[in-house]
């Protein structure tokens, strides 16, 4: 049922074919309106950033205990607001479903889409939107019962696998098993809730979806420690923010917000120590925090824009640890999302 693709299970990778048809139609209708007025001026005069979020994906964008949006991708929007207004609360959140998200962005209902959206070529080139960074490198993985003593996805020959239908998850799994010449028995369900329930009830040996979702679902099980997520990641799902095409200033601002938080982590500037770091002698830190040089003006900001982000929201590591890191219920190790110098692939061009 492609049209009723609920927000809360709309993970980045699980795009439905129907959406593509609809979005292509939308993209055609767009052509002309792609050239937009300056979003930065618009946002400044409105006094807030309109941020498109999910209907609730744990760790990425979901309502917290006091009914406020929180999560890794929500923090990105807060960082944008902090850079412009010196106030991370000047964000207005618009929950979007996966079907309407690109149309909402291109028609100007939201200024930035930060909504577990996978950066793919077709989306980047045909929908009138531009992806500006990868907040989270996700990928499809497998979860099994520890009792089954499966150590690798290569051992899954003959396994019954619970899959949500109509998603790329299904295709990825088929490709993976065909490429490795393994037999498998797909058991397909319509919704994520049903799929998880079937796996928990023992109707299949393996549950497959994006690894961040696997971790979130595992934390809900009666005995999470009985389940293991296999190390193999069989698809690339870079999740990141996107903005409207045709507005270079806003696009570059969006991109450099992301680079600034990654650079800050690399330089060791955190939310906790940003005040002390202002006195640092390291020229890179000085440039980042606006002590030396002015890198904000070309973006329409002041020179302390990155300092404001770090003061209010923190660096990439702070965000990661707060929402999806090992100390949270989701409990995801940094893995691919570690900095390049720590063996991951989070890397930002220098500020200079």
């Amino acid at each position, binding site marked *: 049922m492609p*049209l*009723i693709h*609920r*927000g*809360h299970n709309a993970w980045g990778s699980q795009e439905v074919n129907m959406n593509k048809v*609809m979005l292509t139609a*939308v993209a055609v*209708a*767009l052509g002309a*309106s792609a050239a*937009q*007025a300056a979003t930065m001026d618009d946002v400044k005069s409105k006094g807030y950033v309109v941020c498109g979020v999910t*209907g*609730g*994906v*744990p*760790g990425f964008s*979901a*309502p*917290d*205990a*006091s*009914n*406020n*949006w929180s999560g890794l991708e929500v923090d990105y929007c807060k960082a944008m607001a902090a850079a412009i207004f010196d106030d991370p609360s000047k964000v*207005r*959140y*618009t*929950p*979007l*479903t996966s*079907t*309407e998200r690109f*149309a*909402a962005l*291109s*028609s*100007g*209902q939201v200024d930035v889409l930060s909504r577990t959206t996978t950066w793919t070529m077709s989306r980047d080139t045909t929908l009138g939107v531009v992806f500006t960074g990868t907040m989270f490198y996700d990928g499809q993985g497998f979860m099994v019962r520890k009792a089954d003593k499966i150590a690798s996805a290569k051992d899954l020959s003959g396994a019954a696998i619970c899959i949500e239908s109509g998603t790329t998850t299904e295709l990825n799994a088929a490709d993976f098993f065909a490429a490795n010449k393994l037999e498998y028995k797909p058991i397909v369900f319509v919704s994520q*809730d049903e799929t998880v*329930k079937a796996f*928990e009830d023992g109707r299949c040996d393996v549950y497959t979806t994006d690894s961040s979702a696997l971790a*979130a679902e595992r*934390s*809900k*099980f*009666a*005995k999470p420690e009985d389940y293991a997520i296999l190390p193999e990641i069989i698809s690339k799902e870079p999740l990141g923010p996107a903005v409207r095409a045709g507005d270079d200033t806003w696009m570059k601002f969006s991109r450099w917000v992301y680079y600034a938080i990654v650079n800050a982590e690399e330089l060791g500037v955190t939310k906790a120590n940003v005040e002390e770091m202002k006195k640092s002698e390291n020229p890179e830190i000085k440039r980042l925090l606006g002590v030396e040089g002015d890198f904000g003006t070309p973006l329409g900001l002041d020179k302390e824009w990155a300092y404001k982000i770090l003061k209010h929201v923190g660096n990439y590591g702070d965000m990661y640890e707060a929402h999806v890191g090992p100390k*949270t*219920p*989701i409990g995801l190790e940094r893995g691919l999302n570690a900095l390049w110098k720590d063996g991951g692939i989070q890397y930002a061009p220098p500020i200079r």
Partner: protein
Amino acid sequence: MYKTSFVRTDMIAPMAPPPSTVGVKGWLHTNLFSTPGNTLLTIVGVMFLLWIVPPLYNFLIGNAVFVADDGAACRIEGAGACWAFIWDRMNFFIYGFYPQDEQWRVNICFALGLALIVPLLWPAAPYKIANAVLFFLVYPVIVLILLRGGSFGLSYVPTESWGGLTVTLIIGLAGIVCSLPLGILLALGRRSELPVIKMLCIAFIELWRAVPLITVLFMASVMLPLFAPQGVTVDKLLRAVIGVTLFEAAYLAEAVRGGLQALPRGQYEAADSLGLNYPKSMGLVILPQALKLTIPGIVNSFISLFKDTSLVSIVGIFDLLNTVQSSQSDLRWGSPHQAVTGYLFAAAVFWVFCFGMSRYSMFMERRLDTGHTR
């Protein structure tokens, strides 16, 4: 010759009824085991109850978790429904993202609405006209000012922050209140003898009735903003309310038309021969009778409208169902039955409102019954 006749002077005491027709046994015999077929049905029924009731009881009450600080208590093996989760997130289910410091504004709206709607629905209450004016004309304005803010020193709360039961009730009430007059007008228009009006009404009704509500909502939320000129945005919630209202008006129009056609032709002729003009003959003679006839159909549409409000969740509006769904991403309360408990709660809330509407419509039918049953 003896004339032996014996005439009783008093009645014989009646014999006790056959034991199989009295007491528990008799009741069982007549109601449960009267024929082999009924006996079989009884046994099957009892077996079904034995099969369904204990696990249901255990899940809903026996093993359910009523009080807990977080989901850990619900994650243990064999735990039932996690009602503590519902209780903890109740604020979110009722107010959505409405700022917590401002929730008194929503509460005032609820209290005011209740204070106005109860006397309106209670036939014996006085001042019906003033009450109706207050509820249908003044109350929506007050609600808008209170919830939206931005004037009278109230802080502005965008509709994106409204949510939960509040939004469900807003869409449901606005849809019900606006679609009924529109539906009546459409029904009258469809029976009009003026060709242009008639064609327009038929076209409207047939168009909206033939389109699924989901399509209407998608058009309203995805396509409309693309066609609208740059910078012009109509509020998403308002678009949804308008979509639901127009959709339901088309259904109501057909229900009302059924009532209009069921009236004998004599009623129309009688109204005409009294010299009443069109508005008067409709307002005084035809519509009161037609609407009474169509109460079941109208309330049927209202109930389906109220339940259809949950469809707005697919366009990202946080109605009750959507808040329930998105709170399943709250990992503090993560547990195997988190989703089921949430859906049960949403179902129960919808049931309470729909059942209330249904009982009230039956009450009105009995009250307005004039003995003209056909």
